[in-house]
């Protein structure tokens, strides 16, 4: 198990390193001069040149990469020239929106999907099952941002129950903050829940067809106990895979959803920073997001080992 973790960690680090090079390289070829963008179209060339020097944009590529990387290693994410503050501060601020949003959405979709999956699997072929599955099919087909627009239209503009967007900050209290994350989380969670409940259902059904389920039934255990005690944990493995993948989806989803609800999260930060050519912010945040996806997949791997003892001894 220790070797399993060590080996996985090595792969995680390697993947991250390669990803950082890709990100850095990609951003270097984004056209445009940040200094010019900052100073506006009527600025003099001298002023632009001075700013470029000040921003450290004139250093050689390799040096900039090394500086960036070595900074990251000690937790220094660089300096945002458009916001005039450390990128680390920006991230710390924004993550208090993005992370809760992603977690609420993930929790919401899991809390909806797993019971629905179990319920429909245990009532396979019934009208409940069929209609629930029909609903999930439609749920998968709905683009989450479109769903978000509808939600805003109905709950914020027409019923005025929740804010149409924006984020008041956690310091205004738990409820106002949660309230403003409610619609975005629902918009993100429901389509994901549709996928997840289908996966849960089919994984369960597949597991229920395994030989060891028959062994358990032959012991005299009733179908329900077999489902809960034998099938569920085995069915968890494909569900975990999807959960891991969904995290990346959710992150991507938050980027759009944060824009629909103008939430000051990491996704919006990237959008804004790219538009303003604040590459230090972009590269650091992108690396952070990629790292979190990789890290989540690492956790999923560990969870596999928890769910499946066969993997514990493998490399």
């Amino acid at each position, binding site marked *: 198990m220790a070797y399993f973790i060590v080996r996985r960690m090595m792969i995680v680090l390697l993947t991250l390193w390669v990803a950082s090079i890709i990100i850095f390289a990609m951003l270097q070829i984004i056209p445009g001069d940040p200094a010019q963008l900052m100073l506006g179209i009527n600025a003099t060339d001298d002023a632009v040149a001075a700013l470029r020097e000040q921003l450290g944009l004139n250093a050689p590529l390799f040096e900039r990469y090394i500086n960036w990387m070595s900074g990251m290693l000690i937790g220094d994410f660089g300096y945002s020239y458009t916001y*005039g503050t450390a990128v680390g501060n920006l991230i710390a601020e924004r993550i208090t929106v993005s992370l809760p949003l992603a977690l609420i959405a993930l929790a919401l979709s899991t809390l909806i999907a797993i019971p629905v999956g179990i319920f429909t699997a245990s009532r396979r072929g019934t009208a409940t099952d069929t209609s629930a599955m029909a609903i999930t099919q439609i749920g998968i087909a709905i683009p989450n941002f479109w769903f978000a627009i509808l939600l805003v239209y109905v709950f914020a503009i027409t019923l005025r129950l929740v804010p149409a967007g924006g984020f008041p900050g956690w310091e205004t209290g738990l409820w106002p903050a949660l309230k403003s994350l409610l619609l975005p989380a629902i918009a993100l969670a429901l389509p994901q829940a549709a996928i997840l409940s289908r996966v849960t259902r089919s994984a369960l059904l597949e597991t229920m067809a395994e030989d060891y389920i028959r062994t358990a039934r032959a012991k005299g255990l009733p179908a329900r106990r077999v489902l809960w005690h034998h099938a569920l944990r085995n069915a968890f493995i494909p569900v975990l895979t999807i959960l891991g993948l969904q995290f990346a989806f959710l992150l991507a989803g938050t980027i759009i959803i944060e824009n629909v609800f103008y939430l000051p999260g990491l996704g919006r930060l990237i959008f804004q920073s790219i538009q303003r050519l604040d590459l230090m912010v972009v590269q650091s945040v992108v690396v952070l997001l990629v790292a979190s996806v990789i890290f989540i997949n690492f956790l999923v791997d560990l969870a596999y080992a928890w769910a499946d003892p066969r993997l514990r001894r493998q490399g």
Partner: protein
Amino acid sequence: MTIRPIILGGLAAILFSSSALAARMDLTIGMVLEPPGLDPTAEAAAAVDEVVYANVFEGLTRIGPEGAVKPALAKNWTISDDGLTYTFELREGAKFHDGTSFDASDVVFSLDRARAEDSTNAQKALFSAIEKVEATGDTTVVVTLSEPSGAFLYNMGWGDAVIVAPESADTNKENPVGTGPFKLDNWQRGSAITLTRNADYWGDQAKLDTVTFRFIPDPAAATAALLAGDVQAFPNLPAPEAIAQFEADPRFTVVIGSTEGETILSTNNKKPPFDDVNVRRAMAHAIDRQAIIDGAMFGLGTPIGTHFAPHNPAYVELSETYEFNPEKAKALLAEAGFEGGIKATLKLPPPSYARRGGEIIASQLRDVGIDLEIIPLEWGQWLEQVFKGKDFDLTIVSHTEPNDIDIYARDDYYFQYENPDFKALIDKLNVTADEEERFALYRQAQQIITDDAVNVYLFQLAKNGVWDAKLNGLWENSPVQANDVTGVSWSE
């Protein structure tokens, strides 16, 4: 069935009613762009001024809602007869937010800093006429110009010319310390900036306790935020399509003002076939400005015929110079030798006036045989390719700097217009102090660029102000980019 809405409404009132208190002392203002920093003397972005101008920072003079120069930190001033020496009498008792007092040395420091060799002031040209700045007393400053400058007082009213203290000048970007009626309370990056009242203000106290500027670039989100009451004012709503809806809603006041934004179809004057004045004139005839204003801006905007703001006293109405006449446009093209049509590109920056306007223009020009390929660009790419690289045929952009007709005299400006007569005119303008004379010169300048059809002048961007009907005192026009909230209050 009627019970449910009541319960829901009651619940909603309990849960959601931070705004239902009487005698409101707070205001949330929506803005499209978040400022990159808060130092107007170091940053060009209009968003900086939109937050801090007149609220946090003050200059020697200030520009009022109607565009007139008014006293600010300078109580009054005298100008020598030769127009070269300005003597400013400063306000007494003004204090910076950090408690340090304001005096003449701060003025000297600020102006010298702005015009220094290594200054990063984005509008350095504002100070180019200054030869020296001297403090002749604690409250007296004498500014000597190297040549007369008619716009000097106006220039000193710009956000870029506000007075800062030497102690805090370097940190103003994050922590602005000015002399204004509001000071920075909190900046939640990416979301909002909150100002609180400055109890030590030298002048009349502001009528609000807190003002929050919330940044909502997305037109749909901006509209939704206003409708949902999350923001109570959007001085420049980026969604012209929603204006009609707000006008019909008694909860809101809609004020359509004017901005300094001349929206033009910028033309690369050195690139064939657009180096041919007839081609440019043909385009001017082929374009139906009103259709563009209707289609892209939902009717909001004033047609213009030159690069000048219609609300400016020196404005000349030239929008009928090239009337909408596709036949004439075709004839002009034929005359220029392009009966077979023209193929060109239209590079569009992100704002919706450009993207939507571009679609309409492409459609209109296609009718006279000019076939445009639309190339959408991010601002970064636009700057690189169009503005710096001059690699473009046509583009649409709004020039939001006030009184910037002098860009037509600049060598190598992106639309590459070169006219010695025009340059001479601007040179003369720069040394003219007399207002009437200056107006005359401005009018001449407008006429020249219109005759040359340098660009196709489309419309002046409207300032689509929408705010809660109970709010008083917001600016209706924006002679400078500012959201001056010093006089804003709630009526009850």
